[in-house]
Each structure stands twice: as structure tokens, then as C-alpha cells.
């Protein structure tokens, strides 16, 4: 934060035309903004967060969905935007802070042209932010678990916010030379963003802010079923930047009438663009969503891996390899009779699970009709959530559980099938699910401390769930402590008896060479 004169460097020849002078000032100021400590700190924190995620291997287990990642890229860019605001504000107030404001009146270049050069100054930083976002998305797309397609409009939002922050810093600097105001403006924007994230019941509020954060408990969607007024939000942000430009120029000695008109027109524009960000779901997307929920088979692509056919929305086709690892892991510990069957796994969407909670029941009849029409009866549904975090890991374990239940019971998931997974069957299902992959084992281990000892595996977050009682969970935990191959041999040898609905937990314990621990939980449905 060293002090310099606003004038063009004395060593360079003084430009005669004002356009050249504005260009020269823009070049000097934009470089100064790029290397401003506040901007450098913002970029450093941005890169540090990214490097941490990369270094700890968290990115490798992220299973990124690119149509969501484009949106997530906006929030970390707020660090650079905050740096841009502070940096441009300090550059705009430099003359006043150094006590040389009156000297700058002697410059040949008109004050409004000097302000114009400063308003253009954040452009290179915005381009740099765009580059960072592109590299970030390319990095995520190169991950082995990445699926989907990013939206260029969502990717452009972050850099536009950086540009807006830069011009807003100049505008605030022109309104007041008090440097203590700019941190409060940033704090105000941060509070507004925070309010937008916690008032999800009022979805319109967040669109008036910089970034619109979605309810991340909602399952991810294929790109063509998503609806966010992104294009209008970009227009709104651009209009806000125009308001800042007009305000800064109006404060820099242009004719009063022109200044007031410009501020008025741009403010109206921003208000109209802000109000035009409609959050009401358009009719065609609503009908497409209904079709995708109830009859997704015509739009899905299917692939057969070993004995299982997987059908996914085109955006999620890359997930099939990951699903097959889990399904193969379940089938690895089953006898050849179980793998003689052919299985179908079909991706399903269920809307309203985040708001409706566990009371939402899946449209099983419609799904069965859809399967019958597609010639894939008895499919096991799988959602769009996938990952190793709390939510994604739970979804992964639930799929493994429902697939194992399909193998053990021979029936697709219904309320009756779920109720029939009791005693010995429950032990086998949970053990198969947990030993399917290292990630499902980790998911069970992270789930157990959060439950009262029993395990509930909901189907796509709905009310249809496999409930595994405390005794069975304790037995599975003791089985997981033993070598999987040893338990596998016993499971395969006693498969018929273990998977019979009437075999109880005690019998299963004897067959698997372990014993029943703990008491049956009160109110257990088995």
C-alpha cells in the first residue's frame, strides 16, 4: 500500500489524446490492482483452499457433478472479489489519503476520465478469475469420478462478481474517502449472502445478492432439468456494475444532469433485472421433471457390466462404472446361484425429499410400469447423490444395501421386501453392503456413531427404508473385524439357510461362527 501519483509516469512521453491517457492510466492501475496486497491475499486464500482439497486427496473422492460444481465455484471467488473491492477502493482514495487531492486538479486529464480508467481497472483481474474458474472446472472434470456438463453462464457469474466488486470499490471511494466504510460494505454483503443461504424458504431473496446458494440437501439433477435464472442474474449483476460506474462518474465532475440521469437509468435497470429473476419453475421444465421422475426409461442410456444392466440419465452415464464396483462387490460374496439372475439398476429421481423429509413415499407403481415398458422388470433404484462425505456416503451405502436386499430376497424394493429383511437376512444384507467396497465400509463406520446402534438405509431419502436392528448391526460389526474371505466362505456355504426369511439372528450367528450381542431394541419391527 505505497503511495503513488495518479499521473502517468514522468519517464513516459505525455499522451496528447485523452484516450491514450486513459489507456495508459488503466494499464498502470490494473497492474497495481493485480499486485495489491488485498487482491494477492484473496488469490492466495483461494489457491490455498484448492491446494488443501487437492493435497488431502479429498478431490479424488469427491465424485464431482459438473453442473453443480460450476455453481460451487462462485463462493470461493468471493475471496478474490473482497480483495478486489478493498484494493480498488484504496486505489480510488489514494490521492485523498495522501493529501494530494488538490494537486490532482492540475492534471490535464479530466477527473471523470481518471475515474473511467479506474473503473476499467478490475477487468484484467476479472479475466484472471475467469481463468481460475476454468482451470478449477477442468481440474474437477479430469477427476475419475466426474460426470455432467458445466454451464458457461454459471462459470461467468464468479468473474462478473469480481468485476462488480472492483467497480463498487471505486464507486464507494468516490462517494467517501473514509477507508473504514469499505470493510463495512463487505461485511454487509457477507451478511446478505449468509441471510440468503438460511432463508431457503424465500428463494427470491438470495437472487438479490451476489451468489445464489441452493439447498445442497436436494439431490443433484441432470442439467436439462435444473432451473436457475442464471442469465437474468448475470444481467442483474451487470446492471449493478453499471450503477456503480454511473455513481463513480457522477461524483467525478461530469455534468450534473448527465450524472443524475445515468444513475437513475441504471438503478431502474438493475431493479427491473433484479425483479425479473423469476424463481417460478417454468411449465415445460416442471412437466419434464414429472416425466423424469415417473417414466425416465425413454431418456436413459443403459450399459451391461457383468450380470447387471445399469440405466442412467445421459449426464450421469459416467457413474455406471462406480455403481458397478459396488454391485460387483456385493455379488462377490454370493454363490453362483445368486449371480445366475440378471439384475437391473435404474437411476431414479425423487423430488421433494429435502423438504418432504422421510415422510415421502416413492411412486413404486409408476416405476414398476416404467420398468415393464422398458423390459427391465425388478430394477433397483439408485439416486443421483454419490460420494464419500456424510450425505454421499449414506447414499452409497443405501444403494449397496438395497442392491444386496434385491440379491438376498430376489424381489425389487417394496414395502414388503423391506419388511422381510429381518433376522439372518438383515445380517447378510448389511454385511454384503458394508464389504462391497472400502467406501461403503467407511460409510457404515461414519454412520454408526450418529445412530442409536441400529441402521436405517432409506431408498433415495424416502420413507421406504431397510431397518437393520441393533443386534444385527452388532453382529455385522463383529463379522467386519474378521477377514472378509473367511466370512464369505461361510456365507456362500450356508446361503440358502441364511437368506430364508424365517432364519433368525441366533441361527445366523451359529452359522457364521459368532454370537448374538445385546438385547433386541424395543419397538423393533422384526
Amino acid at each position, binding site marked *: *500500500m505505497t503511495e503513488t501519483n495518479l499521473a502517468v509516469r514522468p519517464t513516459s512521453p505525455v499522451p496528447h489524446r485523452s484516450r491514450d491517457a486513459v489507456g495508459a492510466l488503466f494499464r498502470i492501475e490494473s497492474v497495481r490492482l493485480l499486485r495489491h*496486497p*488485498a487482491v494477492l*491475499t*484473496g488469490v492466495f*486464500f483461494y489457491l*490455498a*483452499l484448492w491446494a*488443501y*482439497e487437492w493435497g488431502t486427496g*479429498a478431490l479424488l473422492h469427491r465424485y464431482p457433478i459438473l453442473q453443480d460444481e460450476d455453481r460451487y465455484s462462485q*463462493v*470461493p471467488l*468471493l*475471496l478474490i472479489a*473482497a*480483495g478486489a473491492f*478493498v484494493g480498488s477502493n*484504496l486505489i480510488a482514495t489514494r490521492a485523498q*489519503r495522501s493529501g494530494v487531492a488538490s494537486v490532482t486538479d492540475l492534471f490535464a486529464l479530466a477527473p471523470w476520465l481518471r475515474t473511467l480508467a479506474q473503473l476499467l481497472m478490475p477487468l484484467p483481474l476479472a479475466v484472471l478469475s475467469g481463468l481460475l474458474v476454468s482451470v478449477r472446472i477442468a481440474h474437477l472434470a479430469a477427476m475419475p469420478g466426474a460426470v455432467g456438463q458445466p454451464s458457461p453462464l454459471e462459470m461467468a457469474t464468479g468473474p462478473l462478481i469480481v468485476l462488480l466488486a472492483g467497480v463498487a470499490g471505486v464507486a464507494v471511494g468516490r462517494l467517501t474517502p*473514509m*477507508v*473504514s*466504510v*469499505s*470493510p*463495512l460494505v*463487505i*461485511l454487509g454483503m*457477507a*451478511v446478505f449472502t*449468509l441471510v440468503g443461504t*438460511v432463508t431457503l424458504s424465500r428463494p427470491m431473496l438470495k437472487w438479490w445478492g451476489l451468489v445464489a446458494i441452493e439447498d445442497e440437501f436436494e439431490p443433484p439433477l441432470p442439467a436439462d432439468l435444473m432451473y436457475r435464472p442464471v442469465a437474468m442474474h448475470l444481467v442483474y449483476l451487470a446492471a449493478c456494475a453499471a450503477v456503480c460506474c454511473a455513481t463513480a462518474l457522477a461524483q467525478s465532475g461530469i455534468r450534473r444532469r448527465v450524472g443524475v440521469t445515468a444513475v437513475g437509468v441504471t438503478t431502474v435497470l438493475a431493479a427491473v433485472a433484479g425483479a425479473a429473476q423469476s424463481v417460478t419453475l417454468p411449465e415445460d421444465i416442471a412437466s419434464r421433471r414429472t416425466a423424469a421422475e415417473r417414466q425416465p426409461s425413454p431418456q436413459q442410456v443403459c450399459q451391461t457390466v457383468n450380470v447387471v444392466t445399469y440405466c442412467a440419465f445421459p449426464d450421469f452415464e459416467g457413474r455406471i462404472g462406480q455403481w458397478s464396483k459396488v454391485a460387483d462387490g456385493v455379488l462377490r460374496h454370493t454363490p453362483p446361484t445368486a449371480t445366475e439372475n440378471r439384475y437391473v439398476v435404474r437411476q431414479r429421481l425423487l423430488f421433494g425429499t429435502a423438504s418432504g423429509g422421510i415422510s415421502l413415499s416413492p411412486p413404486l407403481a409408476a416405476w414398476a410400469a416404467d420398468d415393464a415398458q422398458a423390459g427391465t422388470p425388478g430394477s433397483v433404484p439408485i439416486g443421483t447423490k454419490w460420494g464419500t462425505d456424510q450425505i454421499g456416503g449414506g447414499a452409497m451405502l443405501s444403494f449397496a444395501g438395497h442392491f444386496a436386499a434385491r440379491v438376498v430376497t430376489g424381489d425389487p424394493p417394496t414395502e414388503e421386501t423391506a419388511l422381510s429383511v429381518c433376522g439372518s437376512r438383515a445380517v447378510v444384507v448389511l454385511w454384503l453392503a458394508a464389504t462391497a467396497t472400502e467406501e461403503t465400509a467407511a460409510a457404515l463406520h461414519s454412520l454408526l456413531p450418529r445412530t442409536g446402534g441400529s441402521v436405517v438405509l432409506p431408498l433415495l431419502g424416502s420413507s421406504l427404508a431397510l431397518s437393520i436392528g441393533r443386534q444385527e448391526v452388532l453382529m455385522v460389526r463383529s463379522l467386519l473385524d474378521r477377514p472378509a474371505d473367511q466370512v464369505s466362505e461361510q456365507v456362500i456355504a450356508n446361503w440358502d439357510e441364511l437368506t430364508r426369511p424365517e432364519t433368525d439372528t441366533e441361527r445366523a450367528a451359529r452359522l457364521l461362527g459368532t454370537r448374538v450381542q445385546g438385547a433386541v431394541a424395543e419397538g423393533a419391527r422384526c
Partner: protein
Amino acid sequence: MLTTVWLLAPHLARSSRKAPVVLCGVLAVALAALPLTASYQLEIPYAVTLIRVVAVTVALGVAFALDDSASATTRVTPTSRRLVHLTRIALSALPMVSVWAAGLLLCRMAVPANARQYLPVGGLALEAAALMATTLALAAVAVTVSATTHGGLTATPGLLLATTAMTLLPDGLQPFAGPESARWEASRWFWLILLVGAMFVLGSVLRDARRRPSAAAGTTAVNVSIA
């Protein structure tokens, strides 16, 4: 020493910047009073978030405490530099601590009576103290290595950027852990270490110049001549 502080206080108050303290104080109280004025019943996680926002606002208020354009002229006075700086800090920090306490009370009043006991006041006070100490440490470093009026200019963006970066950390490292999360206890250690570290930096940066070997001879000579 108390007499010296008593004599110094009005002059230091006059040469301190009041606008940041007043602006941040008003903003902090206004933010904390929002739920009460809107008759909104705050749940504990929201109350904790709001108290954290108040803590950041309060920390911004003390960022300009050490800015003193006249410090070059007062360096040669016989009064301990550390005492002058500590008095300056106290003049900003005491009102801001009161503002934080008022903010806490306002948020607490917006929490339903039966849930108030679950508000982790001690842990939140530790966070607020650590944020304030870090801001002052940043300002003290800036005042020492850069210009004497660059304390607030450096500390406020530093605090805001660091706070934003902290909120973006993954759950396993999150310093702003939820009061009911398993990370709450572990995250208190982070704040305690930050507080102690910031106090150490503050103490070592604000030590008296005459103790520096290189500056010792000159300072003593000036002091003697003034005395």
C-alpha cells in the same frame, strides 16, 4: 502508572479515529437487534451465527485503534510506548467489548427462554476475543512495518479475508463449528491458540523501542535531553 494513563487518555482519545468505532458499534447492535425487532424466535445455530457476525463487526471496530499520524512526534516523549499503545487499544476495545456483550444479550433475548441455557457463551466469548486480538496484532504489525496510519487499512481486509477463508474450510477443520457438532470442543483449541498467538505478537511488536539495542543509545539521549 494510573496517573499517566489518566493524563494520557483524553489526548489519545482526541487523536484516535472515532468513526470506525461508532460505525461498527452501531452496525453490530443493529444486526444483533434485528431478530428482536422482527419478533423472530432464533434457534441456537442461527443465534450462534449472528453472535459470530457481531464478533467480526466488533473486531473491525478496533482495527483502527493503533492508527496515529502523530506517532512520529510522540515517540521521543518519556512515556512508555507500550503504555500509550495499550491505552489507545483500551479506548477502542472497551466500548467494543461492551457492544459485543450488548449484542450477545440481544441475541440471547431472541432465543426462546427454554433454549437459552444451551447458548455456548464462553466458547463464543473466546472466538470474539481471538478475533479482536488477531485484528489488533495485524494492525500492530502494519503500524510497525508500514506507515503509522496503515493499521486499520491492513487489519480490516486481513480480518475479513481470513474470516471468509475460514468459513470455506471443510467440515473437518471448520473453526466456526456448530455448538452441537462433534468439532465444537476441538475448534475451541484453535481459537485459544489463535488468541495466545495474537497476544504474543501484539506484545512483542508493541514493546518499547528503547529496549532495542540498535535504538537504545539515541532514544536515551533524547529522553535525557527532554528530561
